[in-house]
């Protein structure tokens, strides 16, 4: 009998026992799903976006189901960095699983300040910098829309933290390459992609937008092929590792991302309909490696045959 394949990766200094995490905003702060998913089985837990102060988010309805996924405009509701550290981090720290905190702000200073605060406490493994949320008026996507603002933001945050920095890029750009390069050159240690794709749903009877925020972001299986293309493009442009997300509903889509060039993957919307998805993805990647006689998941990353 051969040895089990090695699923472990070192993602820019974050030591993950397997290349699978959960997508920010789809897994709360870990605690909410802890009854159903053994958090210690995950490569990392990525939590909902945090800014400096508590934030209320958007009015309801905040989501709508669509063919192939959902459109959401939660609007980054959260407890603020102090609330997160006080109320949510201790539980996660206790589990021992690497914790990636997704951060946002409405100014460069705010991003940098949140990063600094999270660098001073025990139990944060990395920072995912959300510069691509379509659902808040200020901040988020406005920083992600131009390679220069991406570079400036990443550089500003870089100065205030030694934690691995993982900018999360917007999918709705003409070419992802200059954004990936700008982030890498400014000191990013890894990249996350993709965030939701800006979307809108109109009720044809009332002729009103369904979401209170009018527009939102599309997630779920519908966006997976879009994400594969963007991950593939980005992987060719930079040498830093990529965490890929967008429409994973089983091991197949996760493996596809790894082949396209991702070092790790995140399960998002699929958790809502099946919380066991993330565990199925981990087991499925291992089974795939066995079947293809690979000894390490690292062999899979970027193995696409062109």
């Amino acid at each position, binding site marked *: 009998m051969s040895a089990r394949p090695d699923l472990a990766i070192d993602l820019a200094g974050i030591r993950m026992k397997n290349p699978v995490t959960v997508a920010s905003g789809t*897994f*709360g702060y870990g605690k909410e799903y802890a009854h159903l998913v053994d958090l210690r089985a995950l490569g990392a837990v990525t939590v909902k976006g945090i800014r400096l102060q508590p934030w*209320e988010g958007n009015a309801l309805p*905040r*989501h709508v189901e669509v063919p192939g996924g*959902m459109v959401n405009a*939660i609007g980054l509701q959260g407890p603020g960095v102090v609330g997160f550290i006080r109320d949510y981090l201790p539980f996660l720290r206790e589990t021992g699983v690497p914790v990636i905190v997704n951060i946002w702000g409405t100014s460069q200073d705010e991003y940098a300040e949140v990063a600094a605060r999270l660098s001073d406490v025990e139990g944060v493994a990395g920072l995912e910098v959300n510069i691509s949320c379509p659902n808040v008026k200020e901040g988020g996507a406005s920083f992600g829309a131009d390679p220069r603002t991406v570079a400036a933001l990443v550089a500003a945050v870089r100065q205030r933290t030694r934690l691995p920095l993982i900018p999360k890029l917007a999918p709705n750009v003409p070419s992802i390459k200059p954004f990936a390069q700008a982030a890498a050159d400014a000191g990013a240690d890894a990249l996350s992609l993709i965030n939701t794709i800006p979307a809108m749903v109109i009720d044809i009877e009332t002729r009103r937008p369904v979401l209170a925020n009018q527009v939102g972001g599309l997630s779920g299986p519908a966006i997976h092929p879009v994400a594969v293309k963007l991950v593939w493009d980005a992987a060719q442009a930079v040498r830093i590792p990529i965490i890929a997300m967008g429409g994973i509903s089983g091991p197949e889509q996760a493996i596809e991302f790894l082949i396209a060039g991702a070092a790790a993957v995140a399960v998002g919307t699929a*958790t*809502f309909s099946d*919380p066991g998805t993330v565990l199925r993805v981990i087991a499925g990647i291992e089974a795939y490696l066995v079947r293809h006689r690979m000894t390490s998941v690292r062999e899979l990353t970027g193995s696409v045959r062109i």
Partner: protein
Amino acid sequence: MHDIVAKVRSQETLSADYRCLVIEAPAIARAAQPGQFVHLRVSGLETSALRRPFSIYRAEGDLLFLLYKTVGRGTEQLNRLRAGDTFALMGPLGNGFPLDTGGRTPILVAGGYGVAPLAFLASRIPARGLVLIGGRTAADILCEDDFTARGWEVRTATLDGSRGENGLVTLPLDNWLAAHPASPAVFFACGPYGMLRAVAERAASVLAPGWVSLDKHMVCGVGACLACVQRMRRPDGATWIARVCRDGPVFPAAEVVWEEPK
């Protein structure tokens, strides 16, 4: 809380729009408390479809009973379920109603399928009292026998007058309150938002405690996604944003900060 594969035992048609689904779900049925709900993955919809939340209507041994109204594509699929069919079911979720009425007369106020968790409540609390059931027409008035068989008094109201009083369910409620000015009551309500708000106002006006079960569209059902929020005000005046799925769906009526109708 469990995420299990549940098996259909039977399905009964109650009226054109309402059905009762009986399922084998031992772990959930045994833990279920009145006011809690389950999150159901509808087989027959695409795999990415969101789950649908339903109140627990009854729990007996290994069996769980849901009472649902057919309103859209998910509930239409539920109509097709036959004995032996299976689907994923998460539950019991949320916090239920308190079972101690503290010597007060329990007044249950139900609108449409909101009667389901209240029927479960009536079967689990020792006290007896009044049940008010409202609906659009006579076809929306369900479960009367569940209550009367257990010694509860039932009054009904319909918007078209086809059953009981002609009007909103607050009509028989106001009549009862006028006739019993001195009797201490405790309210339990489940139904449309406007109805819950009206009940909360009545409870406040007679200085009685009240509990309302809110119905908000849900995604995760466990408190992770923040799709189902409701603003609340604590007795000390501090406001906070509750997740209906995790912090509710049952809340003290006096603590809900009611939204204005659009």
